[in-house]
């Protein structure tokens, strides 16, 4: 048998047993979704429409995107029926 340096198996099989591969997609973002908690009616539309499913329920008050992975597409802001989410340029957050 030859070496199993990269593959555990004889053929091209990949295991999900180890931590999954993950890209730092939060890095791609140029705009950030910012939630106005007072306007949020807790409908969850932002959460269901988020392509990467990173808009999370924060208690029972509002929803918020996980900025580690949010790509800043703006779907949540667009779909919010109350306009509670605003996309703000990342430049605004540079300290």
């Amino acid at each position, binding site marked *: *048998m*030859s*070496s*199993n*340096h*990269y*593959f555990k*198996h*004889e*053929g*091209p*099989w*990949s*295991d*999900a*047993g180890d931590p999954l591969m993950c890209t730092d997609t939060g890095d791609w973002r140029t705009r950030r979704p910012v939630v106005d908690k007072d306007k949020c009616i807790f409908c969850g539309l932002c959460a269901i429409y988020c392509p990467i499913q990173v808009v999370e329920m924060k208690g029972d008050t509002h929803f918020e995107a996980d900025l580690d992975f949010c790509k800043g597409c703006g779907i949540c802001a667009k779909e919010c029926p109350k306009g509670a989410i605003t996309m703000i340029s990342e430049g605004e957050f540079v300290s």
Partner: protein
Amino acid sequence: MNTTTTTQSRIKVITGNAAAAIAAKLARPDVVAAYPITPQTEVIEQISTFHASGEMDCELITVEGENSAMNAVMAASLAGGRVFTASSSWGLVFMYDAVLAVAGARAPVVMVNVNRETPGIIAVSSGQQDMISTRDAGWIFLIAEDCQEVLDLVLQAYRLAEDYDIQLPVMVHYDGFFLSYLSEGVDIPEQETVDQFLSVLKTQPKRTVLHPGEKLGVGSHGILGGYMELRHKHVTAMERSKAKFEEIDQEFADIFGRSYGGQVEEYRTDDADIVLLGSGSMCGTIKAVIDEQREKGERIGLVKIRMYRPFPHQALTAALKGKKAIGVVDRSLAFGFDGGPIYTELKAFETRMDGAKLVSFIDGIANTDITKTNVEKMIQMTRDLADGKDVPEVTWVSYPDANTKGGK
């Protein structure tokens, strides 16, 4: 072939195609998928009949094309099943992307390919060009000489393909028309004997399979070193298959009483000074001519290639070393080399054969019969080469025009 024990009652007169279908049935595959093509069609007709009568308990997928046949058996094999398919010529070429994928995925698929021509000139006729067109797909290629060997090789193919140390697809080739439709006596083994022969596989570790809910998938991107690792594993598994095939042939002989010699079969080569090298159905005729000429005191032998991929160069050089001249008979073409494909491959090992000279014969393409007269002619030319006479490097035996106009 050395036959030691044969129960007369088991011998049936059947075609090569029927032998392949019966062998598949005896191997008890889980999934069979195939599409008809001349001259293979009878194989799937027979299997369909076995399936319809309940003799064969398998999932039979009557696909809409060869490409799907290979894709279906690939998936079934990766899921853990024993599989079978059969094709020929254009069918083999139409499934070619999946043929490559099967090999790369290391799926132990077993199939028969009934050799037929593949050039754009429509030729519903015998020839090994389909085998040559797919030779470096990464499959193990075995070639049968007669209907009995078709049956035996399919059974041996399962042992080889599914062996834990090998895990490679195996294609059993036999000449279309000459073997596919030729009826001859075939010893059909008992189911229990075949079960016993294949039972070794059950005692081996389980290969990786695709199972619902398991966090495991097949079809990974091999990136850089990963890709090379997989390719290297493939190459080394191919190399291992040579010795494994010899072992399996021995074990087959112990159980079934028939032995063929593994990668190559040597026929009356021991004291031979000249040898013909061939494969497939032509070998029967060559053996008959050798027997006749041996009566006259000619020291001639035959080396028959049974395993074509991986190329059995060690076995071949061992068998051919020290002979004066070797005539290589090809049923296909290798462009740019003028000589036949097996000839050009063997040529690479010429220096290891202690001065044996090589000569190429192209014959048997497009259903041309490799007759006894043709074989005698090839033997004469090989003898001339051994005697130091001037012999063309390549001869189209049944097409003299090639030798006067374009030939070397």
